[in-house]
C-alpha cells in the first residue's frame, strides 16, 4: 500500500531508485550524496533489489560502469555531488553522445576551491552543455517523483538521453520530510521494463562509440540538439502520465507560482523556491503583484515556457546559486536570451548568492524584489560580508 512516511530526502531518493528496479548500480561516496549510496548498498545487501552493486574506485569509473551496463541493455543508476560530478563529466559527455539513458542523481554542492561541502548549484550547472536532461527538485517528494519520471523520460525512444535529477545538498538530502512512497505495483504500471532496441550482444554484433571525423561529427551533435529540444513534449506527456498514476502533478517544465497577473517575478531553482513562495504570499497579502517562476527542467532549457509565462511582467529578478567566473550569472544569461528580439521585453535583473551553503533568509528576497522593481541590476552578489572583501 501507498504510504506517507517521515524520511530523510536521501532515503526517499533511494526508495525511488529501488522501485525503478535498476539492474546495475555503481557509485562512489561523496558528501552530501553518501546517504544515497549507503542506502542503496543496504537495499542490495538485504536482497530487496535484484541488482549488481559495483564498488568502484572513483566517480569516473562509476559513470563508466553504468555506461557499459547501459550499453549492454540494462537499467542503471549512479549518483554524485560536486567534485565527483566534475570528475565524471568526461563520461557524461560520452554517455550523452552515445545516447545511453542512464539516470544520475546529483546532490548539489559547491565546487572546490575553497573546499566546501555545502549546497549551491555550481556542480550540475557546470555539466549543462554535456547533452543531458536536467531536472531540479524543490523538495524530497519531488526528488522521489523526478527519479521515477527520469527513467521514463530517458528511456523514451524519442529521447534517449541521460537524465540528471538534482536535489539540494543537506536541504533536501539530509532533511526529514513527509514523503509519499508509491507502491511497487504503482511504479511497475507506470514504468515498463527497459527494452532497448540495440545493445551489446554477439547475436547482433554492432560497434558503439565509433571515431567520427569532420564529415560526420557535427551532424551527430546537431541531431542531439534537435532531439533534446523535442524531448520537451515527451517530458510534458510523462509528467501528465505521472500525475494520472500517482495523483501528484509536478507541473510543467517550469512551475508558475502566482505569475499570471504578476508585475515582478523571481526566477529560481531548487529548494530555495519554498522560501520564495512564502515571500510571494506575504507580498501578495500586502497587495504587491509578485510571483515566482521555478525552473524544474533546466535542460532542455524551457525558452518558450518562460517567454509565455513572463512576457507580460514588468520586472524579472533571476536568482542563482552558481557563477561563471569571468561572466557572472549563468541562468540569468539564458533567461535574458529568451527575450532577445522578442516583442515583449521585461526588465531583467540578476542576483548571485547562497554560494557554498550561505543562508538565504526570506528578507533577502524581499530586498531582491524591491531592487528589481526600481532598476535593472546586473550580476549583484547578495548577502555579502563586505568586511571580507578588501580593495
Amino acid at each position, binding site marked *: 500500500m501507498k504510504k506517507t512516511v517521515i524520511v530523510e530526502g536521501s532515503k526517499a531518493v533511494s526508495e525511488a531508485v529501488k522501485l525503478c528496479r535498476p539492474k546495475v548500480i555503481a557509485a562512489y561516496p561523496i558528501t552530501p550524496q553518501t546517504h544515497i549510496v549507503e542506502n542503496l548498498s543496504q537495499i542490495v545487501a538485504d536482497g530487496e533489489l535484484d541488482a549488481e552493486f559495483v564498488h568502484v574506485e572513483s566517480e569516473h569509473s562509476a559513470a563508466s560502469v553504468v555506461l557499459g551496463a547501459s550499453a549492454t541493455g540494462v537499467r542503471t543508476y549512479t549518483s554524485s555531488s560536486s567534485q565527483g560530478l566534475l570528475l565524471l563529466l568526461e563520461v557524461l559527455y*560520452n554517455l550523452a553522445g552515445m545516447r545511453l539513458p542512464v539516470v544520475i542523481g546529483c546532490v548539489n554542492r559547491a565546487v572546490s576551491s575553497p573546499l566546501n561541502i555545502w549546497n549551491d548549484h555550481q556542480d550540475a550547472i557546470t555539466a549543462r552543455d554535456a547533452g543531458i536532461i536536467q531536472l531540479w527538485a524543490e523538495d524530497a517528494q519531488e526528488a522521489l517523483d523526478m527519479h521515477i519520471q527520469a527513467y521514463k523520460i530517458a528511456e523514451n525512444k524519442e529521447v534517449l538521453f541521460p537524465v540528471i535529477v538534482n536535489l539540494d545538498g543537506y536541504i533536501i538530502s539530509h532533511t526529514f520530510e513527509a514523503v509519499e512512497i508509491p507502491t511497487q505495483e504503482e511504479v511497475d504500471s507506470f514504468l515498463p521494463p527497459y527494452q532497448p532496441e540495440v545493445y*551489446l550482444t554477439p547475436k547482433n*554484433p554492432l560497434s558503439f*562509440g565509433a571515431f567520427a571525423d569532420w564529415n560526420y561529427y557535427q551532424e551527430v551533435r546537431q541531431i542531439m540538439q534537435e532531439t533534446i529540444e523535442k524531448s520537451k513534449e515527451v517530458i510534458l506527456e510523462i509528467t501528465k502520465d505521472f500525475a494520472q498514476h500517482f495523483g501528484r502533478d509536478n507541473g510543467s517544465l517550469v512551475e508558475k507560482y502566482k505569475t499570471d497577473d504578476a508585475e515582478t517575478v523571481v526566477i529560481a531553482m531548487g529548494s530555495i523556491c519554498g522560501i520564495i513562495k512564502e515571500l510571494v504570499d506575504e507580498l501578495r497579502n500586502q497587495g504587491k503583484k509578485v510571483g515566482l517562476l521555478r525552473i524544474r527542467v533546466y535542460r532542455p532549457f524551457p525558452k518558450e515556457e518562460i517567454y509565455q509565462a513572463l512576457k507580460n511582467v514588468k520586472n524579472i529578478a533571476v536568482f542563482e546559486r552558481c557563477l561563471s567566473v569571468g561572466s557572472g550569472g549563468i541562468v540569468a544569461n539564458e533567461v535574458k536570451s529568451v527575450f532577445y528580439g522578442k516583442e515583449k521585453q521585461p526588465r531583467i535583473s540578476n542576483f548571485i548568492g547562497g554560494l557554498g551553503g550561505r543562508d538565504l533568509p526570506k528578507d533577502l528576497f524581499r530586498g531582491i524584489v524591491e531592487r528589481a522593481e526600481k532598476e535593472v541590476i546586473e550580476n549583484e552578489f547578495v548577502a555579502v560580508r563586505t568586511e571580507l572583501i578588501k580593495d
Partner: protein
Amino acid sequence: MKHLFASGHTACVGCGEVLPVIMVVDTIGPNAIYVSATGCIEVFSSRYPESAWEVPWIHSLFENAAAVASGIASALKISGRKNEAKVVALAGDGGTADIGLQALSGMLERGDDVLFVCFDNEAYMNTGIQRSGSTPFAAATTTSPAGKLWLGKMQRKKNVPAIVAAHNVPYVATASPGYYADLKNKVKKALTFEGPKYIQILSPCPLGWRSDPAMSVEIAKLAVQCGLYPLYEIVTRSENQSGFRGNGELRVTIKVEKRKPVEEYLKLQGRFRHLFDKPEGKAVIQEIQTIADENAEKYGYGEVAK
C-alpha cells in the same frame, strides 16, 4: 579463414599491434564483447561509417576501458546472460599503465569477470610517440628525446604484470606476436578462469620504434630472446577453481637457453639509435644489458651466446 577483425582497417604497414589484436580476437571467437580504450586500436578499427569489428564492440574513453568492461560484465551477470559472451577489454600501454591504471586496479580488486589485454607498444603512439610509463629505459620518444642532457627515457619500464599480480588475480601473462602459439594458449587459458585476467602483449610499432615494417615479428621475437621481454604466466588458481590461493606461481612459457645480446635487438630500432651514435651510449647499452641479465636470472634464461 574469415577473421573476426576484418581487413580494411587503417593500421600502418607492419603494425605490430593489429597483428596480436587479430590473434586475440580470432582465438576468442565470436562470443565475446570487446571494449577498446582510446588509442591506435580504436582509431584504426572504427572510423565511421566503417568498422573492422565483426564482434560486439564499444569504445568509450581513454582511461575507463576496465570500468566499462566491469559494467558489461555486471549487466550480463544480473540479466542471466553470462554464458552469452566473455568480456574483453583492449587498451594500449598508456590506457593500461598510466591513465587507465586506477580503473584497472578497481576492476581487478573487485574480481570482475573480465579479460584485460594490454597492447604494449611502449609509448603513446596514437598521439605521436610520447613516452609512457611502459616506455623502456633509454628509448627516445617525442617527449623523452635524446638530447644534450637526455639519452631517451631515463627511467625504467613500469612492471604492470607485477602490479596486476599483486592484486592476486587468477591469471597474468606476458605474450608476443613473435610467439603465436604461446599467445594463443595464454588467451585460451585465461578464459578458463572466472574473474579478472590480464595479458600484456608486446606490440612493435615501426613508426614509433623507427624500425623496418617488415621486421615487426622478428623484433617481437628478439625482445624475448635477448631477455628484455620475458614470456611467462602467473597462475593464482588452478583451472576452474574458485577462491583465493596466495601469491601465484610464475611459470616461464618460452625458455631461452642461449640469449641474444641486447644490442641485436636495440640496433634494429631507431628509438635506440642515439645509444650507438653517442659515446655515452655505450654505458647505457651496458645498463640495458644488465636489465636483461637480471631478467635472465629471475626467469631462468641462459647466458648470452657469444
